[in-house]
């Protein structure tokens, strides 16, 4: 879902909204840029790419509790580099940020962590795979991974395994982000089965469900006029999945990937996928669309996407909306929605 959230870039000197959301549209001097027709190497491409300015490991999960209630979960690690280098010690230019959240129909718990690279407080190793910041951890292979995070008022301890392959967005993982050619490397693992325990103020809840990992890295993913995006990762009851986003700028730029239950993909270029807000909600003192009509006519998709909890607000260094959704219409299912740039 998300070629997004390089919020860390907020810290960079060039940052301002005139440079696109959270500085994502700013320059990439000295950093590598994504190239067309990439070949990915695994497991090394599960690890970090310090030559690129921004990168993330972004996991969301739709969960059902033993109490019969729906839940959502987020575990995200962002990397940003002040320079295209990596070395030991405090002078490492690599910076890390973690976001964790648990959403219930009437509550949304958030925590954030920041860390410097070079001292072992945060990082990602490819083999064996481990992504961590402080005590938060996402580690292990697709066949058996663990995921943990905690905040002052919530925690979770989950285990996961994948039942399908990685899928690559855009052209074999080269994902366009604007008409001017901004792009990122972007692949997902949308086939995780997940189970574990949520620790919430009202008590522990055993949950099971589906998780979706997005891996993305780039150095200049947004056009300078692009100020926000709306990102959908949806799992339909028939086993197919849809990733679709629209980037809001002087004009709207959209991309989508339809994934069948075996992991085969069809990529859709700008304009095929559309999403229109149907209903706004007052969230953190601003209007945010929390019900959408989503169309992909080429695939016969005409659905309404509704937030499980309209107040899924990430009150972090750079605030945004991220939460579980329900799907009705031509297809039914569940999913996650991310919306940024709503000032």
């Amino acid at each position, binding site marked *: 879902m998300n070629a997004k959230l390089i919020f860390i870039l907020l810290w960079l000197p060039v940052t301002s909204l005139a440079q696109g959301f959270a500085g994502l549209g700013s320059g990439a001097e000295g950093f590598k840029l994504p190239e067309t027709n990439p070949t990915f190497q695994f497991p090394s491409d599960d690890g970090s790419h310090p030559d690129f300015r921004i990168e993330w490991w972004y996991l969301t999960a739709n969960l059902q509790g033993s109490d019969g209630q729906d839940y959502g979960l987020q575990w995200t690690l962002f990397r940003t580099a002040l320079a295209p280098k990596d070395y030991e010690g405090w002078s490492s230019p690599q910076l890390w940020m973690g976001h964790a959240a648990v959403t219930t129909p009437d509550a949304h718990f958030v925590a954030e962590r920041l860390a410097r690279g070079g001292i072992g*407080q945060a990082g990602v190793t490819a083999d064996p795979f481990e992504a961590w910041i402080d005590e938060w951890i996402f580690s292990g292979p697709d066949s058996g991974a663990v995921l943990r995070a905690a905040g002052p008022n919530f925690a979770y301890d989950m285990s996961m395994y994948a039942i399908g392959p990685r899928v690559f967005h855009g052209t074999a993982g080269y994902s366009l982000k604007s008409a001017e050619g901004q792009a990122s490397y972007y692949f997902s693992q949308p086939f995780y089965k997940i189970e574990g325990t949520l620790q919430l103020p009202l008590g522990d809840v055993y949950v099971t469900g589906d998780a979706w990992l997005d891996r993305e890295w780039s150095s200049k993913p947004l056009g300078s006029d692009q100020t926000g995006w709306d990102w959908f990762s949806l799992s339909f009851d028939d086993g197919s999945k849809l990733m679709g986003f629209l980037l809001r700028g002087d004009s709207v730029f959209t991309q989508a990937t339809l994934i069948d239950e075996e992991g085969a993909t069809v990529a859709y270029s700008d304009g095929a996928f559309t999403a229109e807000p149907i209903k706004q909600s007052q969230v953190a003192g601003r209007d945010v669309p929390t019900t959408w009509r989503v169309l992909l006519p080429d695939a016969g998709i005409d659905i309404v996407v509704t937030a499980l909890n309209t107040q899924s607000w990430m009150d972090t260094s750079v605030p945004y909306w991220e939460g579980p959704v329900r799907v009705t219409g031509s297809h039914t299912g569940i999913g996650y929605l991310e919306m940024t740039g709503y000032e």
Partner: protein
Amino acid sequence: MIAVTFAALWGHWWRSPLQLFTLLAGLALATALWSGVQAINAEARASYDAASATLGEAQFDRLVHRDGLPIGQDTYVRLRRGGWLVSPVIEGRIGDVRFIGLDPLTAPGGMAPIGLINMNDLQGFISADGRIIAAPDVLLDGVKFDPAIAPGTAIADVGTVQVLLGRRAEFDALVVRSEQPLGQASLEDIAPELTRRVAQSGSDIGRLTNSFHLNLSAFGLLSFAVGIFIVQGAIGLAFEQRRGTVQTLRTLGVPMQFLVLLIVVELLWLALIAGLIGVGLGYLIAAFLMPDVSATLRGLYGADVVGTLKLRLIWLASGMAISIFGTVLAASTALWKLSRMPLNVGAQPRAISVIAGRGEKAQVAASAVLLLVAFVLGLTADEILTGFVLLGALLIGAALGLPTVLRVLLDGVAQYSRGVIASWFWADTRQQLPGLSLALMALMLAMATNVGVSTMVSSFRLTFVAFLDQRLSSELYVTAEGPEQAAYMVDFMTPQVDAVLPIMSAQVQISGRPTDVFGARDHTTYRDNWTFLTAGLTPWEDVHTDAAVLISEQLARSADLQVGDVVNIGQQPLKIAGVYADYGNPIGQAIIAESLFKTLFPNVLALRFGLRLPLEDVDAFVEGLKSEAGLPASSVVNQASIKAYSLAIFDRTFTVTAALNILTLSVAGFAILMSLLTLTAMRVPQLAPAWAMGLTRWKLGLLELFRTVMLALLTGVIALPLGLALAWVLLAVVNVAAFGWRLPMFLFPWDYAQLGALAILAAGLAALWPAMQLVRMPPADLLKVFSNER
């Protein structure tokens, strides 16, 4: 009508510009005194705020090494990965500059200085050649200045400071965020060598310097009281002198309410002008005293206060407020009296005296109640607030009682006076008392304040000198740079001196209180020099033979421990053998035997040593240390030089105190001058008959002068016990409540005599001018009294 009436009222000031001057000057002086003290306090506080914000000590708990050693970077990462939201701090001095290193990404909000919150600076701050942000007084090239940083301090990224101090991969402390995640591992499991130090309600520095500030705050409060009296006097005077004008205007048909309104407007204008002048004067006073205050604090506690002033809104506002508030307070009584003044009664001094007599009963009753409250609180008060209530009750009660006490004394003297002139003099003095009583109250409060503050400061000095003698009993102190050098030094020094006394300490918890524990060698130095507040018969012997412990007064008070109680250091139970004074230390202290210390803290090595040797050998030995052992001069401290330095600091404190003493007394003297000026004019009808009966003007003038000096003397005699009571409250109630230790009180008769002389001098100077006026008064004026209907 408004313009005409106002012109008539205002015309009064044109006719007597001197009175306008006294009113304005009185208000301005009172405001100046108040705002001057406030300015100094506000400035110093702002500096501490910056200091404590820099270190976050006030808000956040910290993890420190149990044995005072550095914390390894690996320990920090282990803690973070165990769910501990902590942030590293490293600190050290390079030359005069104190460097603090922190990690802006993990530092809790409110810890890093404000300038850092601007994330645009982040890249420059944390990059390899990290930017340094410093207080404006730091003399470094290429740094960014930020006034929010404590004076003398520079802040940089933790990595940058590690490199600057040559201390790679280590920290001094870890700041603990107030919100921690669920499921955090226990500290004992991750880093058993660390201990959690609870956030202090004020920083270390703040707590220490607060004891000095209390001094100044008390002075501010008291000067406020003196100020109120002088404003009251000035306003009362202005009203008294304009009774005639008011009466004429009323007779002409101007409604009373309208007159009152006009007077209020006029007074507010005057208060505004006088307030501005006063704040300006206060600024000058503060600017003049600030370098001394700054030096005092720096030397006493090592807290840096910038020795310059900024115009701060808080004391500007408070200065204006006291001017206006004082005016309103003083004018309300005067206006009330004015509005009740019968249309056809003239202003007669005798009338004032009689009316005053009626009010006296209520005043005495109020005084008695307040003094009773003060007495009860004196026995029971144990909080700062009650301590200050006690101060207030004591001062106001005493002030209200003063006129009655003086009257009773005068009545007594009058009974025994022989001769016509003497009888007339005493009777006349008694009659003048109501008119002078406000000014005398101001004088008494000023005098008592000075006695109290002088006693406090001087007691502090005596105690501190004795304390220095106890603590700095060795002739020389040397510091090694590391364990190897320490071992070499001990070998080198031992044959040359009488004794080498290692100084080693570790931080522990005793009864839940953070405490520095010291290991002491069994040596006569300690037995000869240490005094105890309470102790068994042989405290040092108990320490060395029976594994006993000596604890500081602060620890004893805060944990409610007594001699004979048993406390634990780690797993070791220790019986308390004595309690000693440890002035100014915000945390507890304890002393155990060197052998026991080495068992409990095997990793702590002594790097500092006290050396005992004959005084005459000191210079030669120091020379030898430098030339033969190659120890830098900065590692050797001569005990005599520390003491001399400490005393020099105190002398600076005295400069400030003395300057404030003279100022308060001048203000009180000014109040007397104004009261006398009023009375002089009114008293002509009473003096004229005495003159007519043969008393020369010279003699009358001398009697006036004598009267004032005598009243000042009586007031001073009453002020002395009041001042001592004040000092007692400050030392034994407020200080204990604020800092947990009691300052012993000493008496300084010579100082009091000097203060008394100053007070009398102020009164005498104030009386001189009115007396001279009387001496120079043309006989025609005196004669006029007899031709006048009055």
